[in-house]
């Protein structure tokens, strides 16, 4: 479990995160949603230990991130950043995946095995010998997933994973997340793409100006308010569920279709 206790973080004199307390369980999807600059990515960085709270504490499986090196925390919490160009620098795709594994002390053979498995998992093994910068935007993004997947962290943080992804890549991304959940991993997503998040019905924290202004299951979020002040657009399935006066909102098109056909009333 990841626990944040009254966490503050400042950039200079500005609070990016202000008094946040929350819990994240493994084997679940958790989403941080909110407008740009709300502090979602800062929270993700705090959880992965690469920045330390200015005040308060972050515990990853009981380890206080302030009292331990980020190298210890990232073994448990892998974070996938939004922009692949910020991290790719090795000569080949295979070496790019092996880089983190070598940092973590895996011997060359095991690092190579793990890297190949991860590349295979994301459909990139055929590019193993190619320079990473020659890949397309979507492939580079998948490569960043493979990089983190290779060391098998218990929690994986996706920072704005849907940005710049086409329909097929989004479908693949959801499949990857489903499989990670089946493996018992904790999946943490920062995003404002409500259409992508809605079917996952994650435990949701609405972040605004560095504070948690709402928490609960996503399907409850729009029952109470439309949260347009947090720049959240209500997903179409939620809207149609309201129009159909459903007791519980439909989480998938299939659910909604069944209700419309009169097969079910959810």
């Amino acid at each position, binding site marked *: 479990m990841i626990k944040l206790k009254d966490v503050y973080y400042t*950039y*200079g004199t500005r609070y990016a995160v202000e008094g946040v307390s929350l819990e994240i369980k493994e084997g679940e999807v958790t989403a941080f949603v909110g407008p740009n600059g709300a502090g979602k990515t800062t929270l993700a*960085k705090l959880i*992965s230990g*690469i*920045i330390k709270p200015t005040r308060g504490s972050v515990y990853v499986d009981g380890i206080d991130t302030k009292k331990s*090196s*980020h*190298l210890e925390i*990232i073994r448990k919490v*892998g*974070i996938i*950043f939004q*922009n692949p*160009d*910020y*991290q*790719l*620098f090795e000569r080949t795709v295979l070496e790019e995946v092996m*880089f*983190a594994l070598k*940092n*973590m002390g895996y011997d060359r053979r095991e690092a190579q095995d793990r890297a190949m498995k991860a590349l295979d998992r994301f459909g990139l093994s055929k590019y193993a010998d190619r320079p990473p*910068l020659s890949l397309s935007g979507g492939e580079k993004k998948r490569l960043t997933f493979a*990089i983190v997947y290779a060391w098998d962290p218990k929690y994986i943080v996706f920072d704005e994973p849907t940005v710049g992804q086409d329909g097929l890549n989004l479908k693949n991304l959801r499949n990857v997340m489903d499989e990670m959940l089946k493996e018992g991993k904790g999946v943490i997503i920062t995003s404002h793409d409500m259409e992508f998040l809605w079917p996952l019905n994650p435990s949701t924290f609405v972040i605004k100006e560095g504070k948690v202004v709402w928490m609960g299951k996503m399907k409850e979020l729009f029952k109470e308010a439309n949260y347009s002040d947090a720049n959240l657009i209500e997903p179409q399935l939620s809207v149609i569920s309201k129009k159909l006066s459903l007791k519980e909102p439909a989480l998938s098109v299939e659910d909604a279709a069944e209700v419309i056909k009169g097969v079910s009333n959810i």
Partner: protein
Amino acid sequence: MSAISRAFVYEQKDSWLYRLNPYTKIAAGLILIVASLAFFSFEKALSLFVLMLTLSASAKKLRSNAGSFVPSAPFATIIFIAEFLLGRSLLTGFAYALRFVNLVFSSSIMFTSVSPDEIDYMARKVLRSRDFSFLISTTYKFIPVLASDISQIIEVQKARGVDFDTKNIFKLLKNYYTILVPLFVVSIVRSQQLAEALELRGYGASEKPTFIYEYPLRTSDLIFMILILSLIVYIGMFA
């Protein structure tokens, strides 16, 4: 933005310094830099330091400019130790160390008080080449962007297990290599996008593009220049 970045990046404040003509600010900055290099004795270096502290504080920039002490302090310490090892007196060691601090401090005062637009204006007036002046001012404008890129790349590489806190200097240098390639890639992509954006907004369409702002010389500029020159000459002759 880190304290070091803030010490060298322009930030608009509501104070008398920002209302001066850019030529005045650049000239005063250069005078301070030259004085930092020219004043060897401890008394002169200390007087110049106090003068710059007063100048920075009255312009509401002390907090930003004080960030320049972060990178200069370790080098100043090395200079002091080296002077001591060479058998010079403690006072000479202090003077040489303070001279270095003054040099960085004066650069910080100059860079934080002249905006990229003012640099563009001056470069266009002086160099009479819009391309060259644009090159200079854009480079200056992109310093904070580059600083932000570097800090983001460092965080991304930390998330992959790169240790930037290691005490082993060779390992640290090797680890910094992981920043170079992404920084190049991001910078090249950005420069290409900037070039396209400029063309789309008519850059080069007119041989004599107009200026958005004009910066006339005022009495306050003259008074400030006389004051700063008098004080520097006084320190140089009598301190």
